[in-house]
């Protein structure tokens, strides 16, 4: 045992993972782990000290992300990662605050917080793992489930229209909007790195397979989903957010769609409200 641990090369991200919590709960074939890896890689490559980051998750399979990263990390209530992150950011604007959670958490139960954080240009990074379903509870219909797709609560097919999440984030005022799939690991890592380096509300949607609870009901094995991610996607940076419906028959558009500068919520607040002569008391930089 001692021998093998001294000879084995440690995983390059080991310093960012709570190794004492491995194995993780994600199913085999799940895409969440890949998204998580891209996110951790971006944090590492940013060169920013780890104690300058905080990660916040809500509830769900991807919501477990905060439990595995070895930085100050918060696993909150269902849908509320963004307001928790808002509290952190407004009280300590020097921190890089990353929200890592799922589509159900961020865009259904937490949808109100998403649009308002975007409107305010809250300086946080939202990584939305979109698996098109509620994975943890067994695959119920979500606000992202494609029209007619099957779920445990729409056994004859989804009668509803899903959200186009980049359009939603853009319309609400997000200043950085991108979409990738977990298969596009390099692009995704770059997107997270860009978001870390910039200021403002960054929304990154990542399509990610849930073979166990979505794929199974829709005759799609993990590899089939990956093939779709590979073959039926089109990278089109700058595409208008209204073109971004998730429809693999037409081809799903990936890329960076919005990247604009606008003063952030904390910057404007301090500029307008804090007296100019006031020393910025107790704002430590860690």
């Amino acid at each position, binding site marked *: 045992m001692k021998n093998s641990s001294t000879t084995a090369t440690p995983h390059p991200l080991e310093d960012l993972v*709570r190794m*004492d*919590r491995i194995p993780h709960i994600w199913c085999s074939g799940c895409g969440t782990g890949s998204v998580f890896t891209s996110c951790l890689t971006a944090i590492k490559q940013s060169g920013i000290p*780890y*104690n*300058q980051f*905080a990660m*916040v998750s809500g509830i769900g399979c991807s919501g477990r992300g*905060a*439990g595995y990263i*070895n*930085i*100050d*990390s*918060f*696993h*909150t*209530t269902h*849908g*509320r990662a*963004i*307001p*928790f*992150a*808002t*509290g*952190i*950011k*407004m*009280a*300590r604007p020097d*921190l890089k605050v990353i929200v890592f959670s799922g589509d159900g958490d961020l865009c259904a139960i937490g949808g*109100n*917080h998403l649009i*308002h954080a975007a409107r305010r240009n809250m300086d946080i990074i939202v990584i939305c793992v979109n698996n098109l379903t509620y994975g943890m509870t067994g695959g119920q219909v979500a606000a992202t489930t494609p029209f007619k797709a099957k779920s445990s609560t729409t056994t004859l097919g989804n009668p509803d229209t899903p959200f186009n999440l980049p359009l939603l984030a853009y319309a609400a005022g997000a200043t950085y909007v991108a979409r990738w799939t977990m298969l596009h690991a390099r692009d995704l890592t770059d997107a997270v790195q860009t978001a870390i380096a910039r200021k403002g509300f960054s929304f990154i949607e990542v399509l990610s397979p849930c073979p166990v609870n979505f794929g199974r009901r829709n005759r799609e094995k993990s590899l089939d989903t990956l093939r779709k991610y590979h073959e039926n996607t089109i990278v089109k940076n700058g595409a208008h957010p209204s073109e971004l419906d998730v429809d693999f028959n037409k081809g799903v558009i990936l890329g960076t769609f919005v990247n604009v500068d606008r003063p952030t*919520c904390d910057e404007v*607040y301090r500029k307008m*409200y*804090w*007296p100019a002569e*006031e020393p*910025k*008391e*107790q*704002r*430590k930089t*860690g």
Partner: protein
Amino acid sequence: MKSHVLTGEHFINGDEACAEGAIAAGCKFFGGYPITPATEVAEQISIRLPQVGGTFIQMEDEIAAMTSILGAAWTGVKSMTATSGPGFSLMMETVGLAVVTETPCVVVNVQRAGPSTGLPTQGAQADMMQARWGSHGDYEIIALAPSSPQEMFDLTITAFNLSETYRTPVFIMSDEIVGHMSEKVIIPEARKIKTVSRPRPTGRKDRFLPYKPGPNGVAPMPAIGDGYNVHVTGLTHDEKGYPVMSVETQKEMMARLLGKIRNNLDDIILTEEHRLEDADIVVVSYGVSARTAYTAVEEARQMGIKMGLLRLITVWPFPEEKIRSLAKRVKGFITVEINMGQICREVQRFAGLTPTYLAGHPGGAIIPPEDVLKIAKEALA
């Protein structure tokens, strides 16, 4: 350093006094959402916080307001929100997160009559049981009930001190009448105001256990960025803060959460006694109702009725030992509260065979002292 405490005599309402109390206690973050009759707390503190290097943010709803103050608390600052019944209901799930993650914060509920939208501009005290049991699961909570604008100031400081000491949310259960009533409020010099801040950990960062209780049952609390790499979760967790889905861990965690309150009752429970020494009838009351109860006691004494007042400044945890010991020597208890019998039930639980009565009202008005006297006369007849 210049003090930001408004030392001196002021004529302000309870809501404003509450905001000043928060400033004096060292509050640096308020996440709010407007609601009658608590809005003035937010309005006042939105002006005051930036003056002291603090931050006010009006969130998109009460769920967000409550959640934002937890995020802020983990950066090491004292944080707060204020609301009334409907908003209090929306905050309840997050209150549970604050309890289980041992996150200090102060939540003000300026109560109005319910249920539902009820009487938005008229007072009540009918959220008292919601304050105790409103979030799911078992837990202990601290709730204070101010009777005057002066106490809105004083008890807001006490609330912050208790929340920092015990790493727990503390409720200030005010009501529309106290919130909107203007009276003289004396704000002492800053150096005479006792404030408490949560202990921060020291020592080896890699071995730190964020939920391993210290001497008073509470663990020191690191802030984000201190380098302790804490994991904070609403799942059942061990002393390291890691989720463990076992019956044993649940038992240990619950013992810790309940113990830190139950083992420190003497420090947490604040009561005031008035003419209790020789009382036959004890009036139990809190908040605005304690004022009418006080008048009732004075009038009863003039009529030769030996009435005394036990005023609950801390309503939760409930002073059950006090009721038990009084029950041994008095002829009856009358609970005076603007609801249909909430704290009255608690009195009943500990009064044994001693009769208990309610001077209650469904909300929108105070309890007239005559109601209390009438019940006392019937009880003694």
